[in-house]
């Protein structure tokens, strides 16, 4: 179309030029005439005017036709050829060009078509290979996911940074079973495992895996017991995810809630202990008294009566104690920690490394029997050994410690020795009873607790001949068990929760500003309130939030919590939100909800529609709750104004309609958060079209818009 226009314009210009040239020539000739000549020629021309006009038109038309023919043969076909080739390259490889125009052009078209043939075949081949590879990967992913969902164990896979790449429904169920604060979704893709399990325990496990892998173990598994932040007692089995190059790139955690089983067995133990050990003294007293009475029948009656009285007292006491034990043993429980099997050599090696690193003194292993399997809680035990070494170093200037590990009957003797300083029993006693402090970190345990936990003993001894002192730890021995990884059969069930792309995702925290919007993790949230004026005492009554990880809105990972505002709701608010005051009774108050919400948002960028309003409510609570939301915030209202600066309405419904997002469940906090999240996801590519790619770009663009100047 454009070309035709161009051609018409060219043609018109050409003709105008021709007419002008002839006109000019005529004018020059005309001006050279005298008056008579002018009159004669003028008359002659006028008499022949019809013929002149016809000839003129014929000439112009003829020229036009010649030009058109030239255009059709030499200009148009190469252009079409170029466009056709463009189509092949960019859009449709099976498109072919039409041979036309001159013989040379037709030949060229033939060659292009032949090239396109080759190109298409190659493309098809590549695509077939890609889709084949994709299908295999998808199949594997599905198989894995199905496997995960069938497992009765709770499984979480993390990368080395501790970010969660995969979890199954059981894990989520297990870890959300907290009696604590509301719906804090601690398990989530891209979230940190350290929000659930103490970082030092996980590091300890990883260290163990490294050691065992380094020692040539083919399928190393580490175990530890942890109290979750929600207060559950879980046993974790940890297996490494190993890359092709043999490096550990992450780990699989299999978790069991052992609180119940520990409680039960601990209660049983307690009962057994109070019935055996608690009765020993009394029985000893009775037995001694009875045997004395039997052995000395000549005893004077007064003494005899006293012995019989002792028997009476003790029997009575025992019955009473039995009753007490049965009634009270549940209240005096001490948690018993399950112990793991560990090779003695590993324990000594780990303890030596820890001491060298933390205390900064050299260590030696004098004699380590091998293989010697211990049943220990390696974490607390290594902590104890490090603690002892550090106190020896600090208080008695011990400059080197030595280890020795030998068997003695059913136990292992682990000696921590040094030369020089001997300790008073007073010192030992206080070391045993004080909470262990290591590098400024206080452990809730004492050395005594740790030994009790192991059913072991510790004492101080001096080897007189060599002037060597040592602590001897008596620890339980065990037969090694193959720590097998449980596997279940695959089924055709639907995939679970995974995102392996996170394996390659770097840490979220530093330099968020320069990261691409499409790479960030977001918490999209919304609040419902009693009214519109937070500074006049209006309060939050509902918080809803969803997460966006790797450009996906994660439906399962939502935060949805009603809040008791501790004040009356306005009629409008009841109407808008549909939340009746009765629904808020018994709900947690904001000072309980905000900490949970804060954890839900950890390490993410906040997104809200008209964020300034919601942030204002949150900020007003900073002083009373001590919770600060210092994350970057993006506002979909402002971003909409960036994308469509000429449109008037930037209400959530209007934007949603514009961007083709279904609006469901509006005016519930979670419903609005979902809509806002969908809207935001649609906005990311639109922003990119405007050159707004990073978080920084987006924040700056939003600030510049008119709406940013409105103060709420």
């Amino acid at each position, binding site marked *: 179309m454009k070309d035709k226009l161009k051609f018409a314009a060219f043609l018109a210009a050409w003709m105008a030029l021709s007419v002008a040239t002839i006109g000019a020539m005529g004018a020059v000739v005309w001006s050279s005439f005298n008056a008579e000549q002018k009159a004669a020629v003028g008359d002659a021309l006028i008499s022949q005017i019809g013929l002149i006009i016809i000839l003129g038109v014929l000439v112009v038309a003829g020229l036009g036709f010649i030009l058109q023919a030239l255009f059709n043969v030499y200009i148009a076909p190469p252009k079409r050829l170029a466009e056709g080739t463009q189509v092949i390259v960019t859009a449709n490889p099976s498109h072919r060009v039409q041979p036309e125009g001159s013989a040379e052009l037709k030949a060229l078209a033939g060659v292009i078509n032949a090239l396109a043939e080759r190109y298409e075949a190659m493309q098809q081949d590549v695509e077939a290979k890609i889709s084949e590879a994709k299908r295999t990967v998808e199949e594997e992913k599905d198989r894995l996911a199905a496997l995960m969902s069938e497992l009765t164990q709770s499984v979480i896979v993390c990368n080395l940074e501790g970010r969660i790449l995969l979890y199954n429904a059981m894990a989520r169920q297990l870890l959300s079973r907290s009696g604590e604060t509301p719906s804090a979704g601690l398990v989530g893709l891209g979230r940190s495992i350290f929000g659930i399990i103490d970082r030092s325990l996980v590091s300890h496990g990883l260290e163990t895996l490294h050691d065992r892998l380094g020692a040539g173990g083919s399928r190393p598994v580490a175990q530890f017991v942890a109290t979750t932040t929600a207060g559950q007692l879980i046993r974790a089995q940890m297996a490494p995810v190993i890359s092709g190059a043999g490096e550990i790139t992450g780990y699989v955690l299999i978790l069991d809630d052992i609180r119940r089983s520990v409680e039960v067995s601990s209660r049983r133990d307690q009962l057994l202990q109070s019935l055996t050990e*608690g009765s*020993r003294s009394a029985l*000893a007293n009775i037995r001694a*008294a009875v045997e004395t009475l039997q052995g000395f029948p000549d005893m004077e009656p007064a003494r005899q009566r006293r012995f019989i009285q002792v028997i009476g007292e003790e029997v009575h006491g025992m019955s009473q104690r039995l009753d007490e034990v049965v009634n009270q043993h549940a209240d005096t429980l001490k948690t018993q920690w399950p112990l793991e099997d560990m090779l003695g050599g590993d324990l000594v090696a780990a303890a030596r490394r820890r001491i060298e690193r933390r205390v900064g003194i050299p260590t030696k292993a004098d004699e380590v029997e091998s293989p010697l399997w211990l049943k220990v809680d390696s974490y607390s035990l290594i902590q104890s050994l490090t603690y002892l070494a550090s106190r020896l170093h600090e208080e008695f200037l011990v400059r080197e410690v030595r280890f020795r590990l030998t068997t003695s009957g059913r136990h292992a003797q682990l000696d921590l020795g040094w030369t020089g300083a001997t300790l008073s029993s007073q010192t030992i006693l206080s070391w045993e009873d004080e909470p262990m402090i290591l590098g400024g970190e206080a452990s809730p345990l004492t050395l005594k607790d740790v030994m009790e936990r192991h*059913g072991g003993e510790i*004492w101080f001894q001096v080897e007189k001949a060599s002037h060597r002192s040592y602590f001897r730890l008596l620890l339980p021995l065990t037969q090694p068990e193959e720590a097998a990884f449980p596997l279940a059969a695959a089924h055709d069930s639907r995939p679970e929760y995974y995102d392996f792309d996170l394996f390659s995702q770097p840490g979220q925290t530093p330099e968020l500003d320069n990261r691409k919007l499409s790479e960030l993790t977001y918490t999209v949230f919304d609040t419902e309130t009693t009214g519109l004026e937070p500074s006049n005492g209006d309060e939050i009554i509902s918080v809803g939030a969803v997460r966006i990880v790797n450009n996906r809105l994660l439906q399962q990972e939502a935060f949805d919590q009603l809040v008791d505002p501790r004040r009356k709701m306005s009629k409008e608010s009841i109407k808008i939100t549909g939340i009746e005051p009765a629904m808020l009774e018994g709900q947690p108050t904001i000072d309980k909800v905000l900490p949970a919400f804060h954890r839900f948002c950890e390490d993410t960028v906040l997104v809200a529609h008209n964020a300034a309003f919601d942030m204002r409510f949150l900020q007003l609570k900073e002083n009373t709750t001590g919770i600060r939301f210092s994350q970057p915030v993006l506002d979909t209202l402002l971003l909409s104004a960036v994308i469509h600066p000429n449109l008037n309405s930037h209400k959530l419904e209007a934007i949603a309609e514009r961007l083709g997002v279904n609006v469901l469940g509006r005016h519930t906090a979670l419903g609005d958060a979902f809509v806002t999240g969908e809207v935001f996801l649609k906005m990311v590519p639109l922003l990119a079209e405007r050159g707004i790619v990073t978080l920084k770009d987006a924040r700056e663009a939003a600030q510049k818009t008119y709406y940013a100047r409105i103060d709420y």
Partner: protein
Amino acid sequence: MSKRVLIADDEPNIVMSLEFLMQRAGYQVQVAGNGEDALRMATDGHPDLMLLDVMLPKMSGYEVCQKVRADPGCGNVRIIMLTAKGRDTEVAKGLAIGADAYVTKPFSTKDLLAQVKQILGEGE
């Protein structure tokens, strides 16, 4: 001269039997009701033998035992530790820190007496 036995136990009901038993066997008997008294009486009086309970008020039997062993004047004091806890780790600990014998409650008075005699070098 008859040998002297120090009974260190805070339960009068067992002390009564032990005291009677030891007296009838011809020993001079002293009684200490807590760990500190036991240590003082041992280091001052150098008894020939101590019947030392592990669970003593003020100072544990282990500590008393270690301190007695550390006192050069008490080199000849024999120690039999008594305990209501029957775990073998404790037996190992007791013997390691210097007890001559370790007896778990409840015990046979006859066996105890035999052990006392044997340790004092009076056994048959």
